[in-house]
């Protein structure tokens, strides 16, 4: 008997704007796709976890409502909120549940319906001091990361812009992506400045969408497939106080990655395909440094020289990432896992990386960060 947790099925509802659909509609459609991919019935699922931040739609208990669309056989359902990292954290909890022997099959749904416009932490129109003073602006947080990186390492605005060029090119081949248009470096740099040095096309859109992932014990999976994708290792973290040291990036990705590598018995050199949290372009450059793919400060030139392209040394965000696939917050972690699973199965079509064996997901949300490693 093995202790392994495997990914039995994945599914998405396309990311974009779907004003005619409810949160429940989006979640149900992704879930049905994942159940079909897994080759199971909903009644086989013994635990449900739902990642969602807020957005529009039901204010509480959305897990009961979305899973309730699929059936009602009394399984435990847990709502998980970790801002933009909600559904990857939900996936970790589902995997823990399976590893503990509490369920053979668990399902994670990530879902969000969002309003248009610039994301303001704490909500637009909040009366708290930082909102009134214009300090709670999501792109500003990443703009400040970028400025510090530029001052410390000489990273250039065009390095950040190149992330967006690459992501958009990858999304051309992703039918679930919100933006399937190629854009040039000049177009990215020439788009409206939002928070220096980040221009509009370096900011992910707000989106509607859903993702679903079915996890199972290895023993259960054997009844359905001969060669499943394994969820090899997972680790999470939250901000760490270190006096006198200011951190770049969202959460302690470097530290969390070290723990995930140790569990997996792998290192950065073993990762063949990666999904990182590029809500804004600095996300990719800072994260590949924290994951140990390149040394601190080398992320900009590495991206510029094509290192993270599908045929580069470290392919990153092969499905277009948050920048182009879209970022319905609660659905994003599950979408990242969906892409890694499709890559490891060789189902990624025109965006397929050459024979990847190990894939990594890094998903972050307001200081919380998750790193998950998969293999096949």
């Amino acid at each position, binding site marked *: 008997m093995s202790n392994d947790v495997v990914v039995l099925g994945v599914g998405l509802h396309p990311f974009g704007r779907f004003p005619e659909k409810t949160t429940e509609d989006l979640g149900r459609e992704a879930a049905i796709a994942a159940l079909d991919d897994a080759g199971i019935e909903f009644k086989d699922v013994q635990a449900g976890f739902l990642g969602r931040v807020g957005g529009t739609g039901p204010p509480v208990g959305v897990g009961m409502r979305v899973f309730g669309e699929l059936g009602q056989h009394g399984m435990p359902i847990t709502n998980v909120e970790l801002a933009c990292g909600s559904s990857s954290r939900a996936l970790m909890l589902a995997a823990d549940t399976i590893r503990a022997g509490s369920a053979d099959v668990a399902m994670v749904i990530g879902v969000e319906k969002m309003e248009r416009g610039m994301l303001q932490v704490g909500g637009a129109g909040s009366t708290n001091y930082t909102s009134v003073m214009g300090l709670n602006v999501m792109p500003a947080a990443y703009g*400040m990361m970028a400025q510090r990186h530029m001052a410390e390492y000489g990273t250039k605005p065009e390095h950040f812009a190149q992330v967006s060029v690459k992501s958009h090119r990858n999304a051309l081949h992703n039918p679930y992506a919100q933006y399937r248009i190629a854009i040039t470096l000049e177009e990215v740099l020439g788009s409206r400045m939002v*928070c220096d040095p980040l221009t509009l096309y370096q900011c992910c859109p707000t989106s509607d969408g859903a993702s679903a992932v079915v996890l199972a014990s290895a023993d259960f999976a054997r009844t359905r497939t001969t060669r499943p994708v394994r969820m090899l290792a997972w680790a999470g973290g939250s901000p760490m106080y270190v006096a006198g040291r200011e951190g770049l990036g969202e959460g302690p990705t470097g530290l969390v990655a070290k723990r995930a590598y140790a569990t997996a018995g792998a290192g950065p050199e073993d990762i063949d395909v990666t999904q990182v949290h590029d809500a804004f372009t600095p996300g990719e450059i800072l994260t590949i440094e924290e994951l140990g793919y390149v040394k601190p400060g080398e992320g900009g030139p590495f991206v510029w020289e094509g290192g993270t392209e599908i045929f580069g040394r470290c392919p990153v965000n092969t499905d277009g990432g948050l920048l182009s696939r879209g970022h319905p917050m609660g659905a994003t972690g599950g979408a990242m896992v969906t892409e890694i699973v499709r890559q490891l199965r060789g189902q990624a079509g025109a965006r397929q990386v050459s024979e990847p064996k190990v894939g990594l997901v890094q998903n972050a949300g307001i200081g919380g960060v998750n790193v998950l490693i998969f293999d096949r």
Partner: protein
Amino acid sequence: MSVADAATPVPLREGLFTIPSRRGALPQLHGSECPQCRARFAGPRVICLECGRRGLSPCLLSPTGTVWTFTIVRQTPRGSVMEAPYAIGQVKLDDGPVVTAALVGVPLESVRVGLPVEMTLHPVRTNDDGRRVVAYAFHPHGEKAGT
């Protein structure tokens, strides 16, 4: 109300920062200091992040520091009194804490990492009593206060 009272600005939020009564004195942020390890934090805290001690003492933080990083916000956020474009930054105060605040009194193109700054009061509006409502911000050393 005396003439002097009427001239004294009102803070946008009580308890966040001081409004100096003496000409030339700088406003300061309220913070917390650990009586055990002397670590300082912005705002009220009960438990020390450095050593875990419970029960921190109120203190006034250093009004001077340097810009650790910054950006220029080019789109006015809904509900904000700041009008784009404006600069904001993370300022590392001389006694340790890092605070995010508006950077004023400096041309946007001159804002840079490492810029030495000090606290200042920044006018945000006039209230119903005709008194000036102010927020805290940072500007380069030696700038004349905006109020």
